[in-house]
């Protein structure tokens, strides 16, 4: 992450615009503060990225290296997840759609459509928007695990 992903100008711009970045070196000998945080957030591998809302509530996490083309949409998913947790469903929908349309080749693109459907359902209180998103999920990513989770709507 430090040699490829973080030096990428697109990544740095996204992080500085929407996130407060905080990092902890877990290499031994780690400080007592880092060990305590590692326990608190059940960190067992590096890199582990934990996204927290301002109330210290975890909204998403990612484990393992991601190149910029995967990390930028991952940041979008974290923003969408935070919006969902705070019941900002219209905003969450826009964020998930931005991932799905802006990064269609990213590994999280099917998941983005799944959650766009959930956000639409919570926003509207009806299933129409959910069906639109999940049908698109099935059409675009029929082999994805996220379509498996949504596929009952096709039954």
């Amino acid at each position, binding site marked *: *992450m*430090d040699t490829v992903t*973080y*030096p*990428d*100008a697109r*990544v*740095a*711009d996204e*992080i*500085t615009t*929407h*996130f*407060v*970045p*905080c*990092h*902890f*070196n*877990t*290499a031994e000998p780690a400080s007592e503060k880092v060990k305590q*945080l*590692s326990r608190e*957030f059940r*960190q067992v591998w*590096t*890199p*582990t*990225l*934990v*996204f*927290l*809302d*301002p*109330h*210290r509530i975890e*909204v998403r996490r990612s484990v393992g290296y991601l190149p910029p083309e995967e990390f930028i949409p991952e*940041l979008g998913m*974290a*923003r969408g997840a*935070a919006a969902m947790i705070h019941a900002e469903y219209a905003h969450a929908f826009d964020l998930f759609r931005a991932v799905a349309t802006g990064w269609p080749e990213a590994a999280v693109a099917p998941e983005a459509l799944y959650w766009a459907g959930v956000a639409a359902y919570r926003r509207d209180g009806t299933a129409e928007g959910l069906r639109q998103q999940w049908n698109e999920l099935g059409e675009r990513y029929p082999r994805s695990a996220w379509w498996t989770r949504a596929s009952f709507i096709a039954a």
Partner: protein
Amino acid sequence: MAVATIPWLDDLDVALSRAREERKIVLVDFLKLPG
């Protein structure tokens, strides 16, 4: 091309406080840096 620099903090309480003020999300990265 210039290498981007991210202003990393090393204090979670400070990061959370700033996130509240700026309505942002805290990105916590547990990493291993060579000694």
